[in-house]
């Protein structure tokens, strides 16, 4: 299975289990900024039947619940029962408030009979929906202003309050009950109402290729338009994708982003960089941004997936000169230090897959629980998955990788104490530093790459179970930084040969409760 596929599955697993970073909105290119950084945006979401509009709306509200937003779902098609079923299996981790359901045509409390069956359509329906929405939102404002009365802004007439997320799913069904002109008026009125309530809303519309004029008309009323499409690949499998068609007054990216729908109805974005994957970054080619499978080609401190990409990049670099950034490609380097970890014996065929997965999960948990890892902000660290382990690049203090290694070793010792040999987790760690470059991937997620990562890998490869090995550049910095490091960092080889015949100085870090005092076997043989 490819790395991208692995990441996608991991994203889904985390999403399903609620263990991912679900506090982030789905990364539709260009939508985050306008939706999150402005007071109110009314968006039209359109696409063919079955593409996943309702589930996207569901996810939009689910994210809203997690963020503590007031959430309202308006539908003229769903009954309360159907609505409950739609939202029954969302994993919203203790929603602060239930989602309010509005459908003036559905009265769940009354028993269904031909006497009380509501036939509301036309302007009455519009009035009923708008009244219900206003009532619901005013109730929210009223409740909140009791706690914080100053939040009401009387100058511009806007009510700045608890954020509101509202979904109308769908306008298509309303079109069966309204004339197009009335629908347009409804959308205009709704837009006016929602803007007073700090609301972000999605209005869904099922379209065919014949409905472009409706999309255009509605698009001129709302603040932005999101498009979904459904295609089939050569095997007849559905390929769903989404993009922002336009957003008023904000930068947006018109790229299509493919997604799929998990068995529990969650939207999973592809390309290995789902927001739900916890922001982990894979290694991608500097030029084409494809995930690099196998060993990358490194040139001028950049990484490529093929000789062709490398040559094209070099030609561009040479042609554009110092203005290479005109192409949008990276041009500036900064220093980072790396922690490269590998689980020893993980690929032992006698270990069950379940056991292997369990060990990986435990190791991830232990790393995440280390203070050295936690105290570095998300923007200052990048995690690069790498087979049986991972590389973590830190753009902060150089001692962080060593501190993390020491803390992790102590935690592992405690963990292993009561475990059988098969359950024990053994690791080897390589630390190095060097220049890195930011590389934007297809989702505009900033990755980093540089020769320090490769060096950390080579250093780690020299070690056995329990070793914390350090490359010269980082070791020298650490030795000059604190006296205590002089007691724990020791030179073990001044001419250790790594790949391509390169010779490096190799240091090891150990004490009573971390590291391995033994000379690594490879270093011993290499002497």
């Amino acid at each position, binding site marked *: 299975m490819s790395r991208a596929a692995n990441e996608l599955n991991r994203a889904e697993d985390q999403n399903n289990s609620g263990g991912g970073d679900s506090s982030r909105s789905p990364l539709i290119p260009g939508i985050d900024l306008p939706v999150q950084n402005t007071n109110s945006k009314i968006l039209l979401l359109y696409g063919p039947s079955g593409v996943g509009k309702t589930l996207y709306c569901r996810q939009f509200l689910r994210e809203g619940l997690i963020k503590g937003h007031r959430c309202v779902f308006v539908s003229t098609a769903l009954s309360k029962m159907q609505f409950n079923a739609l939202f029954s299996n969302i994993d919203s981790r203790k929603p602060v408030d239930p989602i309010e359901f509005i459908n003036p045509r559905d009265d769940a409390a009354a028993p269904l009979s031909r006497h009380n069956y509501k036939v509301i359509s036309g302007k009455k329906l519009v009035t009923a929906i708008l009244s219900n929405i206003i009532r619901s939102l005013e109730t929210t404002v009223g409740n909140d202003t009791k706690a914080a009365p100053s939040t009401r802004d009387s100058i511009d007439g806007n009510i700045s309050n608890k954020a509101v997320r509202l979904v109308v799913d769908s306008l298509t069904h309303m079109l069966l009950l309204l004339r197009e002109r009335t629908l347009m008026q409804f959308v205009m009125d709704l837009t006016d109402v929602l803007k007073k309530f700090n609301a972000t809303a999605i209005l869904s519309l099922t379209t065919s290729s014949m409905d472009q004029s409706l999309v255009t008309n509605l698009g001129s009323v709302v603040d932005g338009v999101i498009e979904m499409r459904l295609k089939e690949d050569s095997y007849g499998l559905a390929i769903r994708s989404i993009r922002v068609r336009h957003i008023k007054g904000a930068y947006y*990216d018109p*790229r299509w982003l493919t997604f799929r729908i998990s068995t529990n109805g969650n939207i999973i974005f592809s390309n290995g960089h789902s927001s739900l994957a916890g922001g982990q970054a894979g290694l991608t080619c500097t030029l084409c941004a494809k995930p690099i499978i196998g060993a990358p080609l490194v040139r001028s401190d950049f990484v490529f997936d093929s000789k062709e990409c490398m040559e094209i990049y070099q*030609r561009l670099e040479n042609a554009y000169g110092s203005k290479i950034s005109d*192409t949008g490609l990276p041009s500036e380097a900064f220093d980072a230090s790396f922690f490269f970890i590998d689980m020893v014996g993980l690929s032992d065929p006698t270990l069950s897959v379940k056991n292997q997965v369990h060990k990986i999960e435990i190791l991830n948990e232990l790393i995440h629980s280390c203070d050295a890892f936690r105290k570095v902000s998300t923007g200052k660290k990048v995690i690069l998955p790498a087979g049986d382990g991972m590389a973590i690049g830190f753009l902060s203090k150089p001692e962080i990788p060593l501190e993390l290694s020491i803390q992790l070793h102590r935690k592992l010792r405690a963990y292993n104490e009561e475990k059988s040999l098969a359950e024990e987790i053994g690791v080897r760690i390589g630390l190095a530093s060097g220049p890195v470059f930011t590389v934007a991937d*297809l989702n505009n997620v900033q990755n980093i790459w540089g020769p320090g990562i490769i060096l950390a890998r080579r250093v780690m490869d020299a070690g056995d179970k329990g070793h914390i090995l350090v490359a010269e550049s980082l070791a020298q910095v650490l030795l000059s930084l604190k006296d205590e490091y002089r007691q724990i960092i020791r030179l073990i080889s001044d001419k250790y040969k790594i790949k391509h015949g390169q010779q490096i100085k190799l240091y090891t870090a150990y004490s009573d409760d971390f590291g391995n005092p033994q000379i690594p076997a490879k270093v011993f043989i290499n002497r």
Partner: protein
Amino acid sequence: MSQCIAFHSYKGGTGKTTIACNLAAMLAFKGYNVSLLDLDVYAPSLHSYFDCNPDKWINDLLFENSELREIMVDMTPALTQYTAEGSNKKLGRLLVGFSNPQKEEIYKLEGTIKTANANIQLLRRFVQLREDLISDYDSDYVILDTSPGIRYWSINSLAVADVLFLTLKYGDLDIEGTIKMAKDIYGSFTKFGSKSFLLLNRVAGYCVPRAYALGSQPEKSNNNPHHNNIVQVPEEGPIELAVIRDELGSDTFLSDQTRMEMISSIPCYCDIQFKKKEFLTVLQHPDHPFAKQLEHLAMTEQIKV
């Protein structure tokens, strides 16, 4: 193996499009799979040349509004009429991707490149376009008809090509500019694996009397516009590599100045140039010196796949 060939020039009007289209057709006629792309994005003309108004353009692909299969138009049927009746000649395939001539689309492409994030996405899709034509469409040749001069999309087109043809019209003012551009830009590409060649177009020797063209030391005549541009033209067969004799002082002046080999000299073809519409002359008039010379070019080792 495949070859990506870019036709470029310092100025417009050097005949890039005509040569690119004819070479593409010639190669497809010989059985190769050829993809031809109009990358003269600022002044597209391939749609006029092929009289085609596609639903989707290269611009749509770059902005992710379409798939590759939607933008590549199969022009192979245009070739089949030139096969001899009853012939079992196996043609290759000629796919053409067109650039949108609408000014809004050109502004959009130009405007988008000013935004770094969008810029890199366009560049990546462009790189991917070339790769997909080779890997998914089994193209033996990808031929790029680029914008003249030093512009964003011409530089990008040259960067992705394996072979660069710097086209120039002899006896024109573009020689100086061409030499400067070759020095400034082409070195960047050849340093990293590209092969670049000069391609001289509209060289005297066909539309002027053959005897005159063949004259070893013709007298200068102010009445003859071609008096300084003489090509060695054999009695029969294709015209060999041009040897220019002129007041510039050296037979190899251009090659020396640009440090590029002159791969071919395309003879002046006023008879077809002034036709209302030139269209695949190499197939319509295979015995024309222009066609012969292009056939010779198509078979040169330097672009062989």
